[in-house]
Structures are given as structure tokens and as C-alpha cells.
């Protein structure tokens, strides 16, 4: 920033203020972090089990649509309707993960390509559904019924009308669930084992193909829930998207920054949310163009990722001190 002639201190203050400076912005940061948590968990979960799921984006989109669909189509008591809508999102995401999982397990097709293709299929099909099934040739779907909404008047009140919604509880729950599955359950044990060494896992009696499919399904379900956060929480409807939301792709960085652990994802997601929300404030508050924010994010990622660099520099310094 300095190099480019902007005042970096003011820039960062604006960034900070725009992310945490007022309760409103804290609410916005957490709200944006919510889908990031899910996308990050999805990708981290897959990574931990030896799979690279670039398809979180598509899984998120179908989850969004499914949640909204249920939210519109039924009129049920909240206790049934909301869980149903959320489950629908998870199921849709799971289905979107199932296909690449199945193809990998049965035909050894590389999951990276299939998930990339599935992203586009999700985008175009959901746009079609919005126009032709969920609405009568409209660009947005109707609003979901109140009974399926995650919106939280309480959060709105305490955060001065931010869009923070009850999904954050679910996200925190998901963090615990991911941690629990991976670290504490026999299922997680099996999935990790297959990820590390499929041969030995098969020798040990595990069903490798089933594990791969299951990993992708769980991963997809996480991403699908991320879609529910948008569909039931942030927006309350679905709309035509002319390009990807980017949450799924950013989720890759979130997962990796978080070291593919549940807690790490949570922290990285909040960091991402803060950077993105805070950056919106940089132009108006400090005159710093928010184009710089991607650069800042990139540098943060590089810095965190190059842990060895720090070790290297430290040993160099020590040597010089000697």
C-alpha cells in the first residue's frame, strides 16, 4: 500500500472499522463468515479424506435452491419447516457430491474435473429452476415463508440491523460436527485412513469405494448447508446468478488457511469475512481502492502458508547472532 502511495495505516484502520468497528459490522462479518464456514468445512473435510472438492460452489448453489424450494413450497409449523428446508439443502449438496464421489469410486474419474463441471451444471440448472419452476418467469423466487426463515430479529436488534441470522449457530454446530466426525468417530477414522492409504485400508477391511463416496457426500452436505445459510438466512430467496458467488472457491483458501481442521476453518472464515466486509469500507473511509484487498488477502495467505519461511528466517537470524 505504501508503495502505491496510499496511507496504509488509514487503510488498515478503515478495514478494521469496516469489519469490527461497530456492532453492525461485527454482525455483517459474522454473517458473511457463516457460508464461508460451511464451504471451508466442506473442502477441509474432503481434504482430510484425501479428496479435492473444487465443487463446493456448485453444491452450495443447489443447497440454496433446495432450501428455498422447500421454504416456498410448504406451509408448515416452524419446528418442522425450518429443519426440513435445512435438510433439503444438505441433501441437495450431498447429491451434488455423490456424483463425483461415485465416479471416482467406481470409474476412478478424477474428482477435480467432475466437480468443476458440476459447478457449471449447478449454476445453469438452478437458474432454470428459478425462472421456470420456482417462479413464473421471474428473476427471483418469492420469499420463503416465515416458518422456514433463519432470520433473527434478536441479532438484528443487537447488531443494529446487520443481516446476521440464526445460521451462525448452525455453522458453529457444524464446526463441532466436523471436528467430532473427523477426530472422534469410527467413521472419521475410516475416511481418514482411506484418504491416507487406500491400499492398507482395503487390507484392513474397509470399503474404500464406499468411503470415497461417503466423504464426498458429507463434504457436499456441508456445502449444501452453506447454501441454506444464503437461502434461508441472508436473503430469504434465490435469484438468477449470472456467475458464481465465489464462496465455494474462497472456501478452498478458507479450508487450507485453517489447516483443514474444524477450528482452523472457523477462524479462517471469520478472517475472510472480516477482510471482505472490512474492505468495502476502505474506499469511502480512507480513499483506498478496494482492489487492494485481494492483494492483502493473497499476502496473508502466502504468509500463513509459508510457515517454513518464518522458521528459515528465524534460524538465519540466530546464525547471524552467533
Amino acid at each position, binding site marked *: 500500500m505504501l508503495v502505491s502511495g496510499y496511507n496504509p495505516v488509514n487503510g488498515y484502520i478503515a478495514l478494521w472499522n469496516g469489519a469490527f468497528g461497530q456492532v453492525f459490522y461485527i454482525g455483517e462479518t459474522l454473517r458473511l463468515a457463516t457460508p464461508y464456514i460451511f464451504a471451508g468445512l466442506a473442502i477441509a473435510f474432503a481434504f482430510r479424506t484425501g479428496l479435492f472438492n473444487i465443487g463446493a460452489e456448485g453444491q452450495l448453489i443447489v443447497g440454496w435452491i433446495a432450501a428455498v424450494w422447500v421454504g416456498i413450497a410448504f406451509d408448515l409449523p416452524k419446528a418442522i419447516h425450518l429443519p426440513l428446508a435445512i435438510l433439503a439443502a444438505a441433501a441437495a449438496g450431498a447429491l451434488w457430491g455423490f456424483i463425483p464421489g461415485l465416479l471416482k469410486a467406481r470409474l476412478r474419474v478424477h474428482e477435480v474435473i467432475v466437480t468443476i463441471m458440476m459447478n457449471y451444471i449447478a449454476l445453469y440448472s438452478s*437458474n432454470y429452476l428459478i425462472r421456470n419452476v420456482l417462479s413464473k418467469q421471474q428473476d427471483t423466487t418469492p420469499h420463503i415463508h416465515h416458518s422456514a426463515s433463519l432470520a433473527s430479529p434478536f441479532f438484528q436488534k443487537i447488531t443494529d440491523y446487520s443481516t446476521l441470522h440464526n445460521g451462525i449457530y448452525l455453522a458453529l454446530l457444524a464446526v463441532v460436527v466436523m471436528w467430532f466426525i473427523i477426530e472422534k468417530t469410527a467413521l472419521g477414522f475410516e475416511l481418514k485412513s482411506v484418504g491416507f492409504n487406500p491400499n492398507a485400508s482395503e487390507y484392513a477391511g474397509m470399503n474404500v469405494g464406499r468411503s470415497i463416496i461417503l466423504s464426498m457426500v458429507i463434504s457436499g452436505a456441508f456445502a449444501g448447508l452453506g447454501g441454506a445459510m444464503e437461502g434461508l438466512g441472508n*436473503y430469504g430467496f434465490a435469484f438468477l446468478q*449470472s456467475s458464481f458467488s465465489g464462496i465455494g472457491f474462497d472456501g478452498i483458501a478458507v479450508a487450507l488457511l485453517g489447516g483443514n481442521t474444524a477450528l482452523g476453518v472457523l477462524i479462517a472464515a471469520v478472517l475472510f469475512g472480516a477482510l471482505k466486509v472490512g474492505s468495502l469500507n476502505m*474506499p469511502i473511509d480512507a480513499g483506498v481502492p478496494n482492489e487492494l484487498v485481494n492483494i492483502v488477502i493473497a499476502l496473508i495467505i502466502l504468509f500463513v502458508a509459508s510457515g517454513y519461511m518464518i522458521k528459515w528466517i528465524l534460524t538465519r537470524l540466530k546464525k547471524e547472532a552467533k
Partner: protein
Amino acid sequence: ACGSNSGNSGSGNKDKFTVALVTDTGGIDDRSFNQSAWEGLQQFGKDNNMTQGKNGYDYLQSKSDADYTTNLNTAVRNGFDLVYGVGYKLQPAIEKIADQRKNTNFAIIDSVITGKKNVASITFKEEEGSFLVGVVAGMATKSNKIGFIGGTDSDLINKFAAGFKAGVKAANPKADVQIQYVGSFDDASKGQSIASAMYKSGVDVIYHAAGGSGKGVFTEAKNIKQDDPSKNVWVIGVDRDQADEGQVTVKGKDYNVTLTSMVKRVDKAVIDLSTKAKNGKFPGGKTIVYGLKEDGVGIAPTQDNLTPEMKAAVKKWTQKIINGDVTIPSKLK
């Protein structure tokens, strides 16, 4: 509830009129309606001796759909008296925030919000402008095959398509309009492929409403011109005067494949509405429709490629529309 519990929100605590706009994901450099809106606001600022910033006029750019509420709120919190939301995508966000922040006035461009005293809506009759370029297209075609390339299959885009088709038919009943969608606004490569397929199948005029994907349409037309300058290939631009996209030089001779463009004067609408608001006449709850009559849509000033007959026809139809002699459909079928 109203926004009184936030320290620095609300308006009226400053004597100076301030105004901000929140873009959609296109940003203020989209060479389209966001940019046009911002240009309008800048002009308004200049005209009223305002400065850019929190005490005058400013913009907030949204980098994703998730940013609308944040940005609108930031604008409110910074005390702007009037906040524009540019693009139909901001409608739900404005609808929500307008209820929460009753002391701030909002304006939504390209969509309609009814029943809120602090929201004015601005829409354009894209179909009317599109009708005029349709008339031109119908007269310019030699193959009687005309193309329309849209970004996505959506309401807004179909307004362009519907008006265009009606214009073509009005001028040339024998001509046929093929409609195809790219699926996105940023896939120039696919835009070019579609254009290529259309031109190769005999289409000689294409009207695009496809944003960045439309770039490929110009590229394809220029390529054809390059190959054979005598060929009858045209592109009709959208939103602003896109004559600069169509320039091509073949063997030292300059051509322009941009037949003309359909312009949407968002800038004008912004200036109008801002002026009204400044003068305390904010049309809350109302929808202002900018059509040909209001000079909100129309045909671009660059008309070098138009024959006198075409210009005459445009003039004739313009008059008819303004007089209300014809109504232009805004929906495909």
C-alpha cells in the same frame, strides 16, 4: 423500529444535501448502467458545487451479491440523505433496509418497490429503445435474419428482446429474429462462438444485451469485416454508445461494425431524481418510468452507419411511441 439507536445514522442532522450510490457487482467502471449512474451523480455534484466524499456525493461498490446490505447500511450510517441502489438485484436489500431506516431516502434503479414512502423507483422502458434499434435492424438486414444475444434468460434482458423483436417486425415483417442466451455476462468466448454461429448461418445484424459476453460479438463482427469489408455485418450495442467497440481498420480504411446502440440514460434519471430530492420534492413511494418520451432511453448519437431512410423511420416511430400511438411489448410472448 427506526434507526435512531445508531449514533451516526439518519439524515437531517446536516444542512447539506448528500447523496450516495451503491453499485451492483458490475462496479462503477462497467461501461454500462452502473457507470452511467455514477456519471450522472458526478454531473449532479458538479452542477451543485458538491465534493466527492461523505459530505457530498460518493459511491460504494459491491463485489458480490452478499455486499448489498452492508453497503446500503454503510451509506445510511454515513448519513447520506439519498441512497441509490443501482440494479434490480438490490431491490430486496433496499426493501428491507428502507423499513429499518425510515429517515433515509432510497432510490432503486431498474426495479420497482411500492408502498414505501422513503423509496422511489426508477425504471426504463428498454423495450422502447430496443424497438427503435429493431426498426433499424429490420431495415439494415439483407438476409432477413437477425440475431439477439442475451446474457441470461431474465426479465430485464427479455424486455430488450421483446422490444427489439417488435421493432424488427414493424419495419420488416419478413425478417426473423433468433434469440440466444450466453448464460452469463462474462463469457466473451461463448458470446463470440454464438455470434460466429449466427453470422455463419446468415444472420447479418446482431443486437446484444450481454454485458462482457457481448465483447465477443463485436470481435466476431470485426473479424468478418476484416476478412471481407464488403460483407454486411452489424452489431447493435447496448446501454451506452458502443461505437468505440466496433472500429476496425482494413487495408488502411476505417470501418465500424457498430450499426448503432440503444442507450439507457441512467445518468439523466439520477440527475433528475437527485435534483428533486435536493429540492425537497423526493417522489417517495412513486415509480418514475423513463421512456423515449422522457429521453430516458433512445438511440445512440452515433448514427453514421444509418441511411437517411433509417433515420427517418426512427424519427417516425419515435414520434408514434411518444404520442402513445403504439405500445411496445415488454415481455416475450
